[in-house]
């Protein structure tokens, strides 16, 4: 509740006194961006983890850096050039995946490292090229969220949520069992491309807060944490979104006080949360051993019935 009223206060700065980390305008923008990132990254990450493509976000992040560099070089908005280049990269990754060629991972390696190397070189060539600028894109920096960016990020996040939540039944079917989905008559290729492009958009959204090198963690770690506690797909989706928002906001707050890179702070918090849940579920499971035995008995009874 405290977090909620803080957020409300952000929207009405004239209201109650804000906690210190929310007083600077750039921090207010950073927190709003963090909330949006916390919503979008686990929403897309759930599907990537389900089809065992957990590191796809990482690859797209590498390619997105090239888009940022192009934007800086051409004096265009880095967010939009990153969206375009990352989407092209995501489509290329999807095509390689669909073909399932044996040389596919080599092709992906060329794409990823070509993307990040090209990005580093081009940022160096641009007017605003500096190692500080480069680092802020690689690992996230609170001060890079410009006022104009916030609206762009909000629109892109809404688009990602519309796809991941609105089409959840169809995307679930495709990620669970692609061949079945084809025979069910779903437009599998279109859905796969939509998912890949949503992942690219999410990477771009998350770039300012988490940085292109660490985005994948915010897509994957909340999902890995949530699925230790859930039995169903939809429950995992919603719980990982909740965890994503919590990690992102608390990580941004931590990075303000500790003066650390926001992306790294968020990721370390997420990993700490994962470790905590792992230990807790292990302890709870150990305490429940007798129940497990009852469950196995049920299975045995079920089999006996089947034989009758």
């Amino acid at each position, binding site marked *: 509740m405290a977090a909620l009223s803080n957020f409300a206060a952000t929207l009405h700065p004239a209201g109650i006194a804000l906690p210190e980390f929310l007083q600077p305008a750039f921090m207010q923008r950073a927190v709003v961006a963090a909330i949006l990132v916390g919503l979008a990254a686990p929403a897309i990450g759930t599907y990537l983890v389900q089809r065992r493509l957990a590191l796809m976000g990482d690859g797209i992040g590498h390619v997105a850096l090239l888009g940022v560099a192009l934007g800086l070089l051409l004096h265009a908005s880095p967010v939009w050039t990153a969206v375009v280049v990352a989407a092209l990269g995501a489509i290329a990754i999807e095509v390689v995946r669909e073909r399932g060629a044996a040389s596919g991972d080599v092709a992906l390696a060329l794409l990823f490292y070509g993307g990040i190397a090209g990005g580093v070189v081009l940022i160096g060539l641009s007017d605003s090229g500096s190692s500080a600028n480069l680092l802020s894109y690689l690992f996230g920096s609170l001060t890079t969220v410009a006022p104009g960016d916030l609206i762009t990020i909000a629109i892109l996040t809404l688009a990602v949520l519309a796809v991941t939540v609105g089409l*959840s039944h*169809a995307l*679930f079917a495709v990620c669970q069992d692609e061949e079945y989905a084809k025979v*069910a008559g*779903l437009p599998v290729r279109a859905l796969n491309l939509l998912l890949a492009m949503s992942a690219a958009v999410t990477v771009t959204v998350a770039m300012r807060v988490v940085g292109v090198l660490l985005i994948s963690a915010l897509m994957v770690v909340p999902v890995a944490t949530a699925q230790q506690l859930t039995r169903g797909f939809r429950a*995992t989706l919603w719980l990982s979104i909740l965890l994503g928002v919590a990690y992102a906001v608390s990580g941004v707050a931590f990075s303000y006080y500790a003066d650390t890179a926001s992306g790294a702070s968020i990721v370390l918090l997420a990993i700490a949360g994962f470790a905590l849940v792992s230990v807790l579920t292990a302890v709870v499971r150990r305490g429940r051993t007798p129940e497990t035995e009852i469950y196995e008995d049920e*299975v045995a009874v079920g*089999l006996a019935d*089947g034989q009758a």
Partner: protein
Amino acid sequence: MNDSTPHQPPRRRPGDSDRGHLEAAARTGAEPVDGSRRGADKDRADRAADSPPDGAGSLATLDESASPGLADPLQSEHFAAASVGELDSAVVALNGRLVLRRISAEVKDGEVVAVLGANGSGKSTLVRALVGLVPLREGEARLFGRPLSRFREWRRIGYVPQRTTAAAGVPATVREVITSGRLAYTGVLGRLGKSDRIAIDDALATVGLADRGRDSVAQLSGGQQQRVLIARALATRPDLLILDEPMAGVDLANQRALADTLAALHASGTTILLVLHELGPLAPLIDRAIVLRDGRVVHDGAPPPAVGHHADPDHDHLHPHAPEEPGWLR
């Protein structure tokens, strides 16, 4: 016309939207593991009000369909019926190797057809080509008389892929997996209506998992996971059910449960095409067997009798298959 013949299972005409066969399947008492059927019975009662003619037809023939495995001489007449699945001179090459060498095969309305053959003979590829999962280099595949490229009625097909597990990277409940079977009706937005929920409940009940809907599929045994995949196909209320090695990795008790479920579906008019390594507990159900060797059809007719150790219906089949395979497979 056919429906007047007492010995034949109730049959639906193409385009018959109202389907009573799951009801019939549920009533033949074939369910293996049974917990709670009450919810499903209530839904069925609701549906019966909507569809008196078809539902009544299913019930009227219950006595005949109770033992569908028995050979029925009158059924052969019925095989003049329409083709529901057909490969015409199909050639398939995978990774530069010819897997199907000009195969022509057909499944007709109401049949139970087994595709048999050793590992690598192309039997899985045959059904995958039929539903468009592998491209044809030559020839044509047709479903319900239409070339695959123009076939749109995917809701008439229930496909059970070859699978050792129904689980993926993220947990999913039994019900969530089966809900995918309704996407052929709901489209990509996937909004579930009452008829969708009824179909899902029926499919769960038919495979005897009515009380496991909220469980994670990863918690189920291999045989139960196979039944989840069959239920997903049944939720589509298919006219043609295609199963790719449904008995692989399934213990004998679950094999028998599956055989009973399929017998009930067959009795209610569903056409069934199975890829099998051996007939096993399904033997009494099979009308016709297509035997493949090295990508060619070497037998298309009565199912071959089981010989030797396999002739014993209760034989344990826990050993790997590989040593039985002749050398030309490699």
